[in-house]
């Protein structure tokens, strides 16, 4: 897998990440469509995800919780806006309470995924933005997202013999 490009467009306040996989498109799609596979990559290191509800249909919801090192749980909720297997998926992601209801003060990010066959493998394009500037500020305030350092550490782990 190669991260081919990461572009931030300040016109639309959107970051677009393009990654190329050697695997066929159906296998890459299963990372999203199979809840057992989704939970293996969604949570940051040390915070494994457990997916409860998983309805990849327009208007459908995906609910999950992350379990922290102390056994603490934090819940999250996707609202699926559109889906077209195995090529596209759009959803919003927000923090939720333990009943799966979105938290009122949660930052909401808007995620759009496209998959296409590319040079014998699969190209995945992820566009990410926020519903409002307020959501942006909350992301910064909460510091909820993992750092680039963790990503790099994992990359090293992958490359280690």
């Amino acid at each position, binding site marked *: 897998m190669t991260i081919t490009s*990461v572009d*931030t467009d*300040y016109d639309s306040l959107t970051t677009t990440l393009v990654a190329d996989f050697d695997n066929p498109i159906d296998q890459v799609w299963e*990372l999203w469509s199979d809840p057992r596979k989704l939970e293996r*990559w969604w949570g940051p290191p040390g915070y494994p995800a457990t997916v409860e509800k998983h309805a990849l249909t327009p208007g459908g919801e995906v609910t999950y919780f992350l379990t922290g090192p102390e056994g603490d749980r934090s819940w999250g909720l996707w609202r699926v806006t559109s889906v077209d297997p195995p090529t596209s998926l759009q959803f919003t992601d927000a923090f939720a309470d333990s009943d799966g209801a979105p938290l009122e003060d949660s930052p909401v990010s808007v995620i759009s995924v496209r998959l296409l066959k590319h040079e014998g493998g699969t190209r995945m394009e992820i566009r990410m933005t926020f519903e409002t*500037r307020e959501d942006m500020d909350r992301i910064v*305030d909460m510091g909820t997202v*993992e750092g*680039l350092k963790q990503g790099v550490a994992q990359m090293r782990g*992958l490359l280690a013999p």
Partner: protein
Amino acid sequence: MVVDETPSEVVDEVFRALADSTRRDILRRCATDEPSVSGLAQAYPMSFAAVQKHVAVLERAGLVVKVRRGREQLVHTDVAAVERARQALDELEATWRGRVERMSNVLATGVTK
């Protein structure tokens, strides 16, 4: 200055203010310099009133501050407010870089050929 308690209508102003290329250019100029509104107006192929309007949008969003010096209105960027927007997108990017790396792990270990 944008504070966390800012009503949502006002923070939406920030979002809108940043989504225009002329306004972002004004932000860049006013981050390194402190031009007057009339000085700014000369830099763009548009009317004084149009530039003044852009500055007003930025000011309402808390991204620039106007100070009066003598007969002139000087404009400077609130760098901290602009930096927050950048930071938020960077954080989101870092999250997804990590996720994509893990996807790659799942594909490498979870697939039997």
